[in-house]
Every structure is written in C-alpha cells, then in structure tokens.
C-alpha cells in the first residue's frame, strides 16, 4: 500500500461572492517532503493555505491530513489536529503582548504536555537553533528587526516539533542575504524534524532552495507540478514566464481602472 500523503487536496473550490478564487485545486504533500506553491499575487495561494489550516471553509472538495478528512470537522477535533501543525506567517505574527520567549513557548505551554520550566528551556534551545542568543528572549516583538521577527516566528513554528509546517511567503520583506539565511534555517529545521513542509511564495530563489517539489497555482488551479530540478524545463509557458519574471507572456496582469 502506498504511503498516505500528509496533505491531500482534491478538487478544492472557494469563492468570495462572485469572485471564484480556488477552482479545483489538487495537491499532495508526502511525508518528509517540502512542496512550494508558486504563483503571482491574487492567484489564491493564501486562500489555499487558510483552507488547509481551517481558517476558511472550502465551498467544495476534500482536504485530508494523514488520510483524515478535515473539511466540516468539528471545532474540538480541529483544535486537536492543529497540534500537528506549525506555521511561519508572512509578517511573523508574533504576539505583541508577550515577550519573545513567551511567544516561542506559547504552543508548548498551551499543549500542556511539558512543565513550565521545560517549556522555557525548549524555547531557549529553539531560539539558539535559529541563531538568536538568550538575551533576545527577554525582548518584545516591537524591539526586533524584520529578520529577527522571522527567526522568532520560525522558532515558534518548530517549538512543538510539528509534523507539518506551513511557510507563508517566508522571505518577503527581507534583504537577499537575510532571505537566504531564513531559507537555510527552514531547510535545516524541517530536515531535523523530519517534517513535511508546504510553502507559498513568489520568490523563486527561495522556492529553489527549500523545495523538493514545486507546484504553480494560476487562477485558482494547479497548472504545473514537478520536482524542483525540472522547473527550468517544465515546457509550460506560464511557469516559464513566472520563473523568469517576464512581463510578456500568457500571464497578463489585470489592472483595474
């Protein structure tokens, strides 16, 4: 019997009023695999991620996590399922009212599986793993630079040692060097945990670095998917245009007057 995929999306649809955002998304992420979904702004990448996380309910289709259907799941079951997930948000989404160390330890304390002291020891260790010293733990999110926020966000995402980690535009807003540092950390952390990763980005350098497989989302559908090594010879005009960042091609920017 083939391995059950960690994440499986089948024919997922989602619309907001008359705006059909997802038009039948099909995607699989295997155990220990890192899949990056690329695509321009407004193609439905974030909506797809929010549907998997349960922040949005799809209109139709199926989303399975470890073979378990999650569409229409009760709130209690969903909360239990979320323990499998870790997520690095685009703007890091650190809690302003908590110190850095409390942010990182938050998931551990909420799960209640480890004593308080142990949770802070693990949080400290995760901060070190992303290259931040113990002094940073005492700071507040407002005192951190963009790169440091992303590192703390990454430390928080991996603190509970999740089976599946989501990365939402992990390098957006960072300089190229810091972006590469974050990419390296993502590769290292997911490999160490043996976790599956699903990332969305429009940064090709980031996608090439962190992906085993790349899928391209265009107008709410996956129009191409394949190993990262094949992305340069996909034979798909849309993918070609996107990865080379050309203004000319089949993808036309819709400018509203």
């Amino acid at each position, binding site marked *: 019997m083939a391995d059950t995929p960690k994440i499986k999306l089948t024919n997922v649809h989602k619309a907001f009023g008359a705006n059909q955002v997802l038009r039948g998304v099909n995607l699989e992420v295997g155990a220990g695999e890192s899949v990056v979904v690329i695509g321009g702004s407004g193609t439905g990448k974030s909506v797809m991620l929010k549907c998997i*996380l349960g922040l949005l309910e799809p209109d139709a289709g199926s989303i399975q996590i470890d073979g378990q259907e999650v569409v229409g799941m009760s709130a209690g079951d969903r909360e239990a399922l979320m323990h499998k997930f870790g997520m690095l948000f685009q703007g890091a989404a650190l809690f302003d009212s908590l110190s850095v160390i409390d942010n990182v330890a938050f998931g551990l304390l909420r799960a209640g599986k480890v004593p308080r002291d142990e949770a802070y020891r693990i949080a400290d260790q995760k901060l070190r793993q992303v290259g931040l010293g113990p002094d940073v733990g005492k700071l507040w999110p407002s005192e951190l630079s963009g790169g440091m926020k992303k590192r703390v966000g990454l430390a928080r995402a991996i603190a509970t040692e999740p089976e599946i980690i989501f990365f939402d535009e992990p390098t957006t807003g960072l300089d190229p060097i810091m972006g590469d540092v974050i990419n390296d950390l993502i590769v290292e952390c997911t490999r160490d945990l043996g976790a599956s990763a699903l990332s969305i980005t429009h940064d090709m350098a980031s996608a090439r670095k962190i992906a085993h497989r790349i899928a391209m989302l265009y107008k709410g559908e996956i129009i191409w998917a394949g190993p990262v090594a094949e992305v340069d010879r996909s034979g798909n005009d849309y993918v070609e245009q996107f990865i080379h960042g050309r203004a000319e091609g089949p993808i036309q920017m819709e400018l509203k007057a």
Partner: protein
Amino acid sequence: MPILAPIGRVFLGFLAMTGRLCQFAGASVSHCVRPPFFPRLVTHQMIEIGYYSLPVVGLTAIFTGMVLALQSYTGFSRFNAESAIAAVVVLSVTRELGPVLAGLMVAGRIGAAMAAEIGTMRVTEQIDALTALSTNPQKYLVAPRILAGIMMLPLLVLVADIIGVFGGFLIGVYKLDFNAVNYLKLTFEFLEPLDVISGLVKAAMFGFIITVMGCYHGYHSDGGAQGVGKATTNAVVSSSVLILAFNYLITALFFGV
C-alpha cells in the same frame, strides 16, 4: 419600487449584523463557562478595566455629584425644599448617573482599546496565529475580557456611587451650609437597597455590552489601519447607544409602573 429597495437592503444588513453579533456573544459566553480558563488573563483584564479606570470614573462621579447638588439647590430653593437635595443626589447617582456615566466613560476608554488591540491582532494575523497554535481566539481573547468586564463594572460603579454622593456632600456642606450630620442623615434616610442593587445590575450588563462590542468590532475588523480605526469608532458608538437603551430597559424592569 426604487425607494424601498435601499431601505430593504439596509434593514436586511442590520438583521444580518444583529444575528452575527448574537452568535458571537453566545459563543463567547459559552467559552466563559467552559474550560480551559485563563485566570492570569482575567486578572490582567480586571486590573486594566477596574484599576486603571478608577481615576476617570472617580473624577466623573465627583463632578456629577457636585453639579447635581448645585442644580437641585437652584430649583428646590424656589419653593423651600432644600432638604430634598441629599435625596435627589443619592437617588440620581445610585440609580442612574453612577452606572450610566461610569459605563460611558469605560466604553470610551476600554471599548476603544479592546477594539483597537484585537483589530490590530486581526490585521497582523495574530488571531490566525492563535488558531495555528491550537488556541481558540474567542476563548483566549474574548472570554477573559467579558468576565473581567462583568466583574469590574459593578465595583467601579460602587466606587462611583460613593464618590458621587461625596461630591454632593462637599457642595451641600461647604457651599450651601448644610449641617454635615444632617446631610448624611437625609442621604441614608431615602436610600433603599434596591437603588444600589439596580445600579449594580445595570453596571454588570454595561460591562458585558462594552466588552462584547469592543471585542466583536475588533475581531471582525479588516482593511488595515483604516479598518481598525473604524472598528474602534463603531465599538464606542454602538456600546454607548446600547448602554443608554439597556439603562431604560433595566430601569423599567426594576421601577416600571
């Protein structure tokens, strides 16, 4: 009918919003009574709502009591009924002005702050981050605020009652030349336990209204900084109007003929 269509749309929009609000309030109340509880967060909110509102509520109460004594003297002295001043002050303050003015001041201070804080958390994805960390945002953010509001408003109003009566006493004794013992005797002669109790029941209801409206508008804010600003305004305006409406309803319930 071109005139009826927009009226119908506004009415349906109002019904939809009322439904959403009732659903939100119901879910939040159910989170208040179901574990897990967050005693630390409730304590923090109690300090924020109760302790830090004391100066503004105290100042409002003392000036209200003073003005009441002065104005009723102006009126009652015309037909030699100065002895009724103490009764007017204590009944007005405990039954109406204490709860209503404290409620309105707290709505401005706390309702606005809650809407702004939760609204900012919404637009910076911190609420989504809570969900991703297996934490129900309504249980973590809304329930502690509602509990603290219901508990602290009656205490604030009790303090406002005492300070308001003291304000009237100051004017009565030092400006209108009442005998201090006589003024206090007149004050307590007319005061019934129901006068104070009705004020405290109102206060608990106002605490619920302020926190629910602040959290509801913050929780559903969108559109960045402008959206947060709109949520703040809506929270203050709607809770102020509801405070005045429920003040009438509770008065009619307790003292209606």
